[in-house]
């Protein structure tokens, strides 16, 4: 799968999971808010119903008391126990009410055999309750705010978001402000249970943005993100392991290929002289059998056979040198780097002239501890590589820079060319045995050089240099002066 598309898919899934989780959280929060609201509203309704019923009972009791004792003082004493009763009036016999509305209510009370409402004034928060009786009827003025049992109130009246109103015939009395001007929310409306005081308890609760469970949602989103990040990290880890395994496998294949190349190369290198040896000796045999024997020709053929046998032996020798990795540390001696360089340049003089290259050579005298032949082999190899690189660019662009310096108590030799440089994928494998970019090459030259340098306590490294070309750096311990 495309990694970008995969990542996008994971992000989308994460978004969906977060959104679903948040929706569930909001819904459950709203459900619990609604449950709390309805419980509170029902409690409010019950409390107010109880109070209104209590007031009904007080009115009935006043009628009973006055019929027993016949005094007004008893009634006043009773009324004083109830703080919501602001005023208490009595009408005896044929006397008339000070308030005309009370007369109509008394008629209703007599008719309905219960207390009746009069002079409802929600703007001032009061109303009259009239109880008709004989010999005297009573009227009590009741304070709406006073009838609320605040000590049993289920909500903190100042801070609660629930708005509570009493409604009667278009009049409204605000018991609790709650939050106003909010979004849609919950509603509750129920008439008080007492017939004498048919007020509607209206409760409403708006839902504001701040009511939503932001913290929980944030927590959920963070949790989702963390889980996804973990998943991605796990996936990345698995991908990396797969890549590492792939690289390992590739490396093994490459090594097998390299071995196959080596074998094929060696087979060819040996086959040619062997073919010549066989043909020469067999030709000589035939010449000796001729009548008369061609002795001179036979002798010459045998000589050529011997030459070719030596050639084959040289091939085997080269191979053995590669395989054995001679221990050069035992033969270390002070060697002047510039002398070794000049020897190598002398050997390569024909190629240098052919390519039209004049090497620029630093004039510092540096003496290192090295095995002379191994050192010259390394330098020869580096120069040969540089020349092969330079052959690939136009003659005017061919520069060969050989530097000799002392850096950090080490003798440092650099061979820089202005050739095509080393490809990025080749650079890390440059010193690997059997790795070669050259057609028919064995890929052992640089590998051997590195082994030789290491054997002498030094190092060999390669890099590209700006603007173009490669530079090889050989470091060797300084000779004691």
């Amino acid at each position: 799968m495309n990694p970008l598309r995969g990542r996008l898919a994971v992000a989308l899934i994460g978004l969906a999971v977060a959104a679903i989780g948040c929706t569930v959280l909001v819904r459950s929060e709203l459900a619990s808010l609604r449950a709390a609201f309805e419980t509170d509203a029902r409690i409010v309704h019950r409390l107010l119903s109880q109070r209104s019923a209590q007031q009904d009972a007080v009115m009935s009791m006043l009628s009973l008391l006055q019929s027993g004792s016949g005094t007004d003082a008893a009634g006043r004493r009773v009324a004083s126990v109830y703080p919501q009763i602001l005023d208490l009036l009595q009408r005896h016999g044929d006397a008339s009410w000070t308030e005309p509305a009370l007369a109509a209510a008394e008629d209703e009370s007599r008719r309905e055999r219960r207390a009746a409402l009069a002079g409802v004034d929600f703007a001032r928060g009061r109303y009259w309750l009239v109880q008709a009786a004989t010999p005297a009827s009573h009227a009590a003025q009741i304070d709406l705010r006073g009838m609320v049992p605040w000590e049993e109130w289920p909500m903190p009246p100042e801070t609660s978001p629930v708005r509570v109103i009493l409604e009667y015939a278009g009049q409204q009395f605000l018991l609790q402000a709650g939050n106003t001007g909010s979004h849609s929310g919950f509603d509750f409306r129920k008439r008080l249970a007492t017939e004498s005081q048919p007020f509607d308890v209206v409760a409403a609760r708006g839902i504001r943005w701040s009511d939503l469970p932001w913290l929980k949602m944030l927590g959920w989103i963070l949790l989702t993100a963390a889980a996804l990040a973990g998943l991605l990290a796990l996936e990345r880890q698995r991908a990396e392991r797969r890549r590492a395994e792939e690289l390992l496998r590739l490396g093994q294949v490459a090594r097998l290929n390299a071995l196959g190349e080596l074998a094929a190369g060696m087979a060819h290198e040996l086959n040619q002289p062997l073919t010549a040896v066989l043909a020469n000796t067999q030709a000589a045999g035939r010449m000796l059998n001729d009548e008369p024997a061609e002795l001179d020709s036979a002798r010459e053929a045998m000589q050529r056979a011997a030459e070719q046998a030596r050639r084959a032996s040289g091939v085997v020798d080269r191979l053995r040198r590669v395989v054995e990795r001679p221990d050069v540390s035992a033969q270390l001696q002070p060697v002047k780097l510039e002398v070794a360089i000049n020897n190598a340049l002398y050997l390569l003089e024909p190629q240098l002239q052919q390519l039209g290259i004049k090497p620029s050579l630093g004039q510092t005298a540096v003496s290192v501890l090295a095995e002379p032949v191994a050192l010259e082999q390394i330098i020869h190899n580096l120069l040969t590589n540089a020349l092969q690189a330079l052959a690939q660019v136009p003659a005017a662009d061919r520069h060969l820079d050989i530097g000799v310096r002392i850096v950090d108590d080490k003798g440092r030799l650099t061979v820089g060319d202005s050739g095509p440089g080393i490809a990025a994928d080749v650079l890390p494998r440059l010193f690997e045995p059997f790795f070669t970019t050259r057609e028919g090459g064995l890929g052992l030259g640089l590998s051997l050089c590195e082994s030789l340098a290491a054997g002498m306590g030094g190092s060999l490294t390669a890099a590209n240099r700006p603007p173009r070309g490669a530079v090889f750096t050989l470091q060797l311990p300084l000779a004691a002066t």
Partner: protein
Amino acid sequence: MNSPLSPLIHLIDDDAAVRDSLALLIGTVGLRVQPWAGPQDFIAQFDRSGIGAIVLDVRMPGISGLTVLDQLIAEGVDQPVIMLTGHGTVEMCRRAFKSGAAEFLEKPVDDQKLLDALQAAVQQHVRSRERSRDDREAREHYARLSEREREVLGLIVAGLTNKEIGRALAVSPRTVETHRAKLFAKLDAESLAQLIRRYAALVEDPA
């Protein structure tokens, strides 16, 4: 000791030591050898009319011996080609024979094997050259015959007697005899057997 008309072996190998030694070996049986260091020179210069054979190394820088073989066959070169290889695979061998190689040998090659292969190749080449010369001559002779003589020749080859031929062509046996004598002379045939051997193919396939 070698006459200029004796078969000439063309030997193509980029390795000088191999080239020289094989040339020496081939020379011991009296065959002339012309060594070539590279296939390009060989293709450009070698004498296509001569009698002989070609020994070609498969592994050469620049151009594969198998490619050279394909070029030679495409050009219609009739000298048999013997391929030499250091490490021959079955696939390589199959390709060589399919392309028309006469023989496929592995290096280092045993002298007897190589020389036998060369002798066989040369003989094959000589025979094929003779056959094509005979074919050419027969065609030329056949062209001299008249229409009637060709009819008579066809019936002779079919095994009819003079009497039967006369009846078939509605002529007298004597006339048949005259045609017969003429065509024997024109075709330079000494016996009936020789006549049939040389010309039967031309009669059956007059094209």
